């Protein structure tokens, strides 16, 4: 069977429609109309009219409440229910302005819909659809206009013009790349280096105080930043985004990775806090298991084994910051992270 049900053939190919035996059932046409109560009961009609009017009136009250709330429930000045300039005042202001607006809007809508449903005609009307495609004559005329115009322009006869035009139009979009390039600098080696340098003290994040090795209790964790990285530093947030690290202390006997222990100091280990998956801060530390967990996508790193990935979508271990103790007993970095921190990128393993 290659024909559509309405007897037409598909413009090309074969249709999978199965023919209807005997042409199928005839459409019975619109069913007889059932009237509403309000159509013949004058009382019901009056009632519907009253309900619509009352709902419009409620809307007016809502508008009044909305406006009044701007004067008697304000966040900063006059507020009947709370002291101005407090979160309570904000809450009351939000509640009453919002309720006023909700009432004024909702009841206009409810009135209009009720009006339409009960009092406007509910007898369904049928309208003819017109064919979306024009007549074959129109289609032919359109085709003629296009082919005629193309012939008048001489596109077919002038290959040199066409070729050069295509070249010009193809070259132009490349120009877009030039303004785009001004949006930001080239990566260069920015992603390969952080603020950490040999000899920089490890300081507590936020108060910036240095940490002595003997202050780091067993199984504790410190969120740390390099000494001298503060809000005066140029590109402060960018540097923080790369330098963020954690300091943990484990029992060296639990350590499974000797080179990781060697980069630490008596079981005190420093790791980048930026997840090697997509860069969330790996902020959760389970003291019992010595696992660090990224709350964004649950990559889990084993601190006793060089922060190796033991679960989740990350692939590379958290880069470890090599540390030692300076003459005054404070923890210092022995250098920058040995490899780029954070999410992997194309040339992450190249030296830059």
């Amino acid at each position: 069977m290659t024909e559509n049900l309405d007897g037409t053939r598909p413009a090309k190919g074969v249709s999978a429609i199965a023919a209807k035996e005997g042409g199928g059932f005839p459409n019975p046409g619109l069913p007889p109309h059932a009237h509403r109560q309000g159509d013949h009961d004058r009382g019901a009609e009056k009632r519907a009219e009253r309900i619509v009017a009352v709902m419009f009136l409620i809307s007016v009250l809502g508008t009044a409440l909305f406006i009044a709330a701007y004067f008697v429930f304000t966040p900063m000045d006059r507020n009947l229910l709370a002291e101005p300039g407090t979160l309570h005042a904000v809450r009351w202001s939000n509640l009453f302005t919002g309720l006023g607006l909700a009432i004024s809007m909702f009841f206009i809508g409810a009135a209009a819909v009720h009006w339409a449903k009960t009092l406007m005609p509910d007898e369904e009307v049928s309208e003819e659809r017109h064919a979306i495609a024009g007549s074959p004559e129109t289609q032919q005329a359109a085709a003629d206009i296009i082919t005629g115009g193309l012939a008048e322009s001489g596109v077919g006869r002038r290959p040199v013009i066409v070729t050069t035009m295509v070249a010009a139009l193809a070259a132009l979009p490349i120009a877009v790349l030039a303004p785009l390039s001004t949006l930001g600098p080239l990566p260069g080696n920015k992603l390969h280096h952080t603020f950490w340098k040999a000899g920089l003290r490890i300081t507590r994040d936020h108060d910036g105080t240095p940490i002595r090795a003997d202050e780091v209790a067993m199984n504790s964790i410190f969120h740390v930043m390099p000494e001298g990285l503060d809000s005066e530093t140029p590109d402060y947030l960018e540097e923080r985004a790369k330098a963020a690290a954690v300091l943990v202390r484990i029992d060296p006997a639990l350590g499974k990775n000797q080179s990781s222990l060697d980069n630490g100091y008596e079981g005190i280990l420093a790791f980048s806090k930026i997840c090697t998956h997509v860069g969330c801060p790996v902020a959760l530390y389970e003291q019992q298991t010595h696992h660090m967990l990224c709350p964004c996508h649950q990559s889990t790193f084993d601190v006793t084994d060089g922060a190796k990935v033991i679960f989740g979508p990350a692939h590379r271990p958290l880069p470890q910051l090599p540390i030692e103790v300076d003459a005054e007993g404070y923890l210092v970095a022995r250098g920058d992270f040995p490899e780029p921190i954070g999410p992997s990128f194309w040339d992450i393993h190249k030296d830059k």
Partner: protein
Amino acid sequence: MATTTPTKPTAASASGSSAAQGGRMMKLGAVGGAWLDQRVSGAGFVKFFARKIFPDHWSFMFGEVALYSFVILLISGTFLTMFFVPSMDEVVYEGIYAPLQGAHVSRAFESTLHLSFEVKGGLLFRQMHHWAALVFMVAIFVHMFRVFFTGAFRKPRELNWLVGFSLMILGMVAGFSGYSLPDDVLSGNGLRVVDGLMKAIPIVGTYLSMLLFGGEFPGHDIIPRLFTIHILLVPAAILGLIAIHLVLLVLHKHTQYPGPGRTDRNVVGFPLFPVYTAKAGGFFFLVFGIIALVSATTAINGVWIYGPYDPSPVSAGSQPDWYMLWTDGGLRLIPGWEFTIFGYVISLNMLIPMAIYGALLAFLALYPFIESWVTGDDREHHVLDLPYNTPVRTGLGVAWISIYVILALAATNDLIGMKLHLSINDLTWFFRIGIFVIPVLMFYVTKRLCLSMQRQRRDLVLHGVETSKVVRLEDGEMLEIHEPLNEYDRWVLVQHDDFRPLTAGNGVSSLRAAATSFFFKDRISPVTPAELREAMAHAGHEKHEIDALTGGDYTTPDQRH
């Protein structure tokens, strides 16, 4: 022209005022009919539009909800731009929110708090903006799947499906760029994920990230740039596409559900003026009122609780808004796959999820073209399919939704784990396996359910409604009395098309033959007139026996008392 009949001096005042009212109405009509017509051809416009017929069905309202929430977004968003400062310059917070007083925050964050706390009505408009965005996306999705399951995307509406699809994507971009603006910890980590995903793109990734952020993450440019995207580029594109969407809607006229008197050549319903002006216009106010009510009573996105963005902290339970959840789920489910080739890194743990998201969207966008290739049907369709009459399409849609839901649930695995006291690792493994197994299962179950429904309806047409009244004949045989369907109810159940698999050859490729077999191998043929006649004859014979016993009185013994 307005003409008024002079009222008799003795007429009651009531009839006098109604005549005057009629006169006013007629004057209004004259303005629309003549005055505007002579200046802007208004009459033709009114004639073309005002009595356009729209069919009535509750499922046609979802698109309206989307449209109206967009209007609310424009109104509330305009208010917000009056107070929001899209700047990443650092300031010291000195507003009324005590826990952050003295903190170093960006102007964007500070102005967000200022407009929420200190501007009258600011919090309300901000919450309405956010709630309307959530409703906008819900409505778009539900509308989209109404269109999908009823086959409204078929010829001639394939292009409008693509317009709607683009609107869905733009809605996600609008939402993401919008909730990133306050520069708080939660949205900052969302941007950090975008940064990580961009960097994973081979060769150009780090360049793209530098260009977007104007340097290294987070930089000083991303908030002003997102602001331009959020309040200019995306809304302009959405407005333009909405215009195309609606022009095409008017051009095609609305689809309608199958019913007596409804065909592919007519549209049955109510006129735009006055019925739909009142109903649809009123519906805008209903949507507005409900969003205002929710915003008045339910807090959303309290960025002051998260705090200003800082790259170091993050809290557990970091979820994006619901319509972005699915893009986070894949990132949580993918194992840590990454390999290095010639010293360069391919991060499959980011590229595979992105490829899956792309494939899911592409399937949705291309489905109308896939299906029309399978059926070879090039007729215009204006009468909708009932979802159970297209078991494979319905099954595919449900399978797609199940993947989407699994991804969205996976993005909340930490919350689910906490609430239900489950191991997050077990949950992740459950979803990892589930994303392969559950869609297949859902497809199969849905398809079988649809076929069962078709079978049940076939039965209903042939035998009528069971009345639960049983008659025992003298030989002990039991017969149930059936009430036959009237022709209007029957029509809905017998009007649909039937498709069958094609065999390869004769212009049918073996791939297409396989596709038609997948789609139409299991089919329940619709009732034919001959089958109905035969069933009626059988029923007539039974009725004869029953009537002989009951004398045509079908009341049960207890009803007679």
